[in-house]
């Protein structure tokens, strides 16, 4: 694993514009950065990343099968009892999952370590699945990278295949929340994939969803919503005014309710309890004040949190970092402290994409702060043997 300085494509901003990628800068700061890339050997990709991600994905499904039958686990995950049946039924009915992203710390030497699983609403999908792929093709064509360079990335292909497996009768609605360009573009991209799979689609906003007198969901044109891809976390939906309608509604959701078990940070201690010592897991436990930690250096994370909010870092028993935010009232987990590696002052976090439960690609965000927040930069990767 190497961090290489490479020439950006001269016209990359024009390419981005023509491909609908309008959030490559955030607040004037570069978000998509192709002046560097990470290069991996094929062995690193297959043995250290692709394989472990597949193994973890399978372990996660085993855990869901156990959790939906266990009130104790559902309680540990702070899922309200009103939604237990819905969660269990979605699993028993085999409702399909589209995608998720594992975040790993990896330095090319030791095993990749799982930080967390963004199983419900991962973003950075478009830039990982499509724009990164386009970068590699262009970079080879322009002589920036040698012809034998490759990339671990069949994410888009897998998304289209998976949409093709959905038994959608009528329209697939796809929704994000208002006011975020990045989320809207992510949903637009998924809609593009769904259309390529032959589905009829309609893009809407979560805020515009209505309910009829029977508690069934409709879009603003009063068309029924039978299938909904929602880039909006389950834990938010449960707490909304319409939350109570969810168990009785006819809508099939993507991601399905059982993904709540995996997008919850409680996943980390549950996996550790079942696979203690697994090379790709960090020790993790449910954190309660006053309890003796498993390690004296650890990170405390809320069960539900996004974008690195409300994280506390404890190093040798002392808090050395905390990030603001308002998550955490449902409880916390702790995970042994494991910093991302340092590559020229940057800490890359590796995102391994799972599509239809298959490990299908890699994307990388790097940040100079220890917590990957929403201002970290996306950098592409390639497979290129050393020397």
């Amino acid at each position, binding site marked *: 694993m190497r961090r290489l300085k490479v020439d950006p494509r001269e016209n990359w901003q024009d390419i981005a514009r023509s491909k609908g990628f309008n959030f490559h800068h955030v607040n004037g700061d570069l978000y998509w950065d192709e002046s560097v890339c990470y290069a991996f050997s094929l062995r690193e990709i297959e043995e250290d990343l692709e394989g472990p991600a597949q193994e973890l994905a399978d372990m996660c499904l085993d855990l869901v099968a156990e959790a939906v039958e266990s009130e104790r686990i559902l309680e540990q995950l702070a899922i309200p009892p009103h939604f237990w049946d819905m969660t269990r039924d979605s699993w028993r009915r085999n409702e399909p999952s589209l995608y998720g992203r594992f975040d790993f710390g990896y330095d090319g030497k030791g095993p990749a370590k799982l930080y967390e699983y963004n199983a419900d609403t991962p973003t950075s999908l478009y830039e990982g699945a499509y724009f990164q792929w386009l970068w590699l093709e262009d970079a080879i064509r322009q002589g920036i990278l040698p012809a034998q360079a490759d990339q671990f990335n069949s994410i888009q292909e897998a998304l289209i295949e998976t949409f093709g497996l959905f038994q959608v009768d009528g329209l697939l609605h796809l929704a994000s929340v208002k006011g975020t360009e990045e989320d809207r573009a992510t949903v637009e991209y998924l809609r593009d994939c769904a259309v390529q799979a032959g589905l009829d689609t309609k893009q809407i906003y979560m805020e515009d969803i209505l309910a009829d007198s029977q508690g069934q969901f409709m879009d603003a044109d009063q068309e029924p919503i039978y299938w909904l891809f929602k880039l909006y976390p389950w834990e938010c*939906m449960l707490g909304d005014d319409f939350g109570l309608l969810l168990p009785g509604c006819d809508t099939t959701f993507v991601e399905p309710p059982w993904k709540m078990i995996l997008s919850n940070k409680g996943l980390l201690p549950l996996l550790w309890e079942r696979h203690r010592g697994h090379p790709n897991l960090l020790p993790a436990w449910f954190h309660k004040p006053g309890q003796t930690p498993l390690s004296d250096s650890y990170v405390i994370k809320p069960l539900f949190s996004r974008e690195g909010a409300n994280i506390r870092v404890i190093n040798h028993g002392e808090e050395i970092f905390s990030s603001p935010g308002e998550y955490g009232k449902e409880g916390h987990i702790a995970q042994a402290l494991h910093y991302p590696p340092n590559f020229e002052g940057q800490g890359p976090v590796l995102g391994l994409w799972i599509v239809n439960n298959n490990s299908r690609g890699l994307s990388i965000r790097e940040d100079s702060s220890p917590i990957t927040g929403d201002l970290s930069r996306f950098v592409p990767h390639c497979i290129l043997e050393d020397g």
Partner: protein
Amino acid sequence: MKRSKALSLLLMGSLTLGGGVGCSKSDKEQFSAYSTVTECIEDGKFTDQECQEFASQAGSQSVQFSSREDCEARFGEGACEADSAAPAATTGADSAPRTSSWAPMFWGFMAGRYLAGGQTMQGATPLYRAGAGGLRTPWGESVSPDAKGRVAPTAAMRQNMNHVAKPRVERQTSRSGKPAGGFNKNSRSRSAS
């Protein structure tokens, strides 16, 4: 080969993505920097109670770093001091006792009000003095208030405000007819990571 042979897009790029998203600023939007609660109240844009809530909200979001270097990387040279919990280490950099915690100097808070998900959201984040003068958010972003304290919010500021903002409680007569959509209470949260 570990990558797809051919990929294409059907829709993206042909549409002006996000056209309108950037144009949805309401005249209700308001970002302002205040060094004290009194300043906030006197400005008249927020109620007394709101200003007090902003100050306590900002005060609860402290940032800390394990080293002066990390802290200065975000707030600039000379911007950081050893945490007050450490033994009095006034200014002397050479003789400062070893401490595990560094923090930038608190200046005040930035209050924000904006529309999101069809409702008015508001909240506050702390502001710190930057090493080279000026103010910075906890994320190290420079904030330059005008003479009246007004700040032109960037996309990142709005996003960061989303972590802490809450719907504004307004005493409005409810409109007749069907209620608007019921998936919106939490829509201030950017959805994903």
